[in-house]
């Protein structure tokens, strides 16, 4: 059997490789090429070289949305992971109804981003108008924090599940040994649980970082980038460049922004993976 697998592995791999090539490699290469072109449809392109990249970087809205995205990602990653870990710690304590709580916390994840965005927009606007404050789409600060709240609400449950799985995988012996040695709960958390949780932390940080950077539908539905692009994250900025500008040159510029965006996300997630991997311990 093993011999057969060794011999025929390319056949087994073929379907997935085909799907990967058709669904990812070809569009990606085409996207790279298009970022060097002026085009309206993908079949009729004029090669213009690197000028699209120059125009993309010079776009002040693009720079602003980039820095806004960085701020958003940092804050949301931090908040999501702190809360998710706290909830996970609480829900691994053999409380009554733990399963129910876990289900409830996980549920927001099952709702699509666009729907969530609109629901929260109504909620926030209700609260803000009761307080006599300007609505969500009028104040960039409210828009920004609204997005953070929305993302936390949606993502905490998901990360919580990963942390719970990680916590349950820590052998009970470790905890017992620590207790016998007289470690306080706080010390147990920092010196025993967290080091053993590093694989979960790696994956959760990776997910929340990339989710934050790639955030699109919630942003579109909640604020639409209003007021005047002040709450527009980078993915929405690319979308707006692509579809809401007149003139054939903008498609290429939008494509160039998308390539830059891709490079940034890949670079950041690689750095993060490397940094947290090095802290992982062997059980």
């Amino acid at each position, binding site marked *: 059997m093993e011999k057969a697998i060794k011999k025929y592995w390319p056949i087994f791999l073929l379907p997935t490789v085909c799907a990967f090539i058709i669904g990812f490699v070809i569009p990606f290469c085409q996207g790279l090429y298009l970022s060097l072109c002026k085009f309206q449809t993908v079949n*009729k392109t004029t090669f213009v070289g690197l000028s699209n990249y120059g125009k993309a970087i010079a776009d002040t809205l693009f720079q602003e949305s980039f820095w806004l995205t960085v701020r958003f990602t940092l804050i949301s990653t931090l908040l999501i992971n702190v809360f998710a870990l706290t909830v996970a710690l609480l829900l691994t304590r053999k409380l009554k109804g733990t399963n129910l709580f876990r289900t409830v916390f996980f549920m927001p994840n099952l709702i699509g981003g666009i729907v969530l965005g609109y629901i929260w927009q109504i909620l926030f606007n209700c609260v803000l108008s009761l307080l006599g404050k300007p609505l969500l*789409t009028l104040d960039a600060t409210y828009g920004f924090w609204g997005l953070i709240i929305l993302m936390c609400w949606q993502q905490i449950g998901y990360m919580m599940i990963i942390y719970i799985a990680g916590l349950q995988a820590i052998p009970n012996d470790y905890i017992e040994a620590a207790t016998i040695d007289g470690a306080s709960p706080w010390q147990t958390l920092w010196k025993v649980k967290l080091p053993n949780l590093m694989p979960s932390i790696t994956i959760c940080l990776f997910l929340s970082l990339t989710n934050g950077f790639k955030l699109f539908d919630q942003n579109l539905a909640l604020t639409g980038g209003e007021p005047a692009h002040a709450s527009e994250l980078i993915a929405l900025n690319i979308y707006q460049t692509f579809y809401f500008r*007149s003139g054939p040159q903008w498609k290429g510029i939008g494509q160039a922004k998308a390539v830059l965006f891709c490079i940034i996300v890949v670079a950041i997630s690689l750095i993060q993976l490397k940094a947290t991997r090095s802290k992982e311990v062997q059980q």
Partner: protein
Amino acid sequence: MKKTLALLLALVMVLSLCACGSSNEAAEAPAEEAPAEDSAAEEAPAEEAPAAEGSVYYLNFKPEQDEQWQALAATYTEQTGVPVTVVTAASGTYEETLMAEMGKTEMPTLFQVNGPVGLANWKDYCYDLSGSDIYGELTNDSFALIEDGVVYGIAYVIETYGIICNTALLAEAGYTVDDINSFDSLKAVAEDITARSGELGFAAFTSAGMDSSSDWRFKTHLANMPIYGEYQADGITSTAAIKGTYLDNYKAIWDLYINNATCDPTELAGKTGDDAVAEFVNGEAVFYQNGTWAYNDVKSLGDENLAMIPIYIGLEGEENQGLCTGSENYWCVNAEADEADIQATLDFIYWCVTSEEGTSCLANDMGFVCPFKSAKAAANPFVQQDADMTAAGKVPVSWNFTTMPSEEWKNGVGSALTAYAAGTGDWDGVVTAFVDGWATEYELANG
């Protein structure tokens, strides 16, 4: 035992291959919608045309009329045997859909642009319609998109907008539409209604919602008024830099809208188009700015209670001002399509605007006013009113918003208007977005 196991394993392998095959398809499907995709489309026109007659693929812009177009296409196929596919883009996604569809091998043979600015994107794909039969049917050259002698597009529907009034409520307040013939009289009536709103039980204007389902009524249609005034005064039809001569008038009408409405100006940012319709239909307000296309929404009030009056903003000679009439729906034939398909498309649109079935469908079922010689009168009272006003010597206001430099410019003005209404921004913000934004966006679009 060993044999059964081997059989089982083989079965699992085959099954997993099948499963992979189907997941493979699933992975392809979403990619097809992505704009960067250029694989052949499977769902585009399915039937083969008989002989070499070609086929028609119409990418329709108006979701309201989808059903009617499908029916009309079926009738045409029945009569001539030429397959006609009509696909309608979801509201607000026409540009995206068009881009994706144009990348396919079975691309639309008939599509539409919204005027000179939209044409800039699609010029290279437009077939020159000069000398075509349908061009000969146009009642007036001003309904065609002509640049440098090339006819790129032909308007197929003429629309009108203004302020729709609930005349029954207006009468209750002691006025008739004849009392309103200038900005000053509109203001007097509106402010009087607001002053007595407690006693009357209704407001002057429906909410000027700035949600994306409604903001185009103000950032595009209302903004047409100061642009029209400026173009008239300067004797031009488009410009690279707007001066904003009539922006004070724009402010006056916007103030009137937001301060005499059903809700507080601070709440406008979240109000939708449906909110305004509901307020109007429920008799909570007298005036509702919209166009002929909104007739179906408001007809429950009864034709005798509905009237459309011009949007007065205090321009000179506005006592002779008519409703805003024009088009942002131009048919273009895809020059990249096969020769036979182009011919089939030209025949189809010619049939639509000349045949008995076509003209009655356009006029009665779709309610369109078409600028073609054999077009029938549309069943829509607002259209009739527009015709009456023009006959009485009023001058229709042309649609100059098709020359607005970009969607981005409209959004900028919209944001500024919303901020001004809510008190988080001032009018200077609107002026900046209007005047400076125009120059910047024009430069970006044409530079």
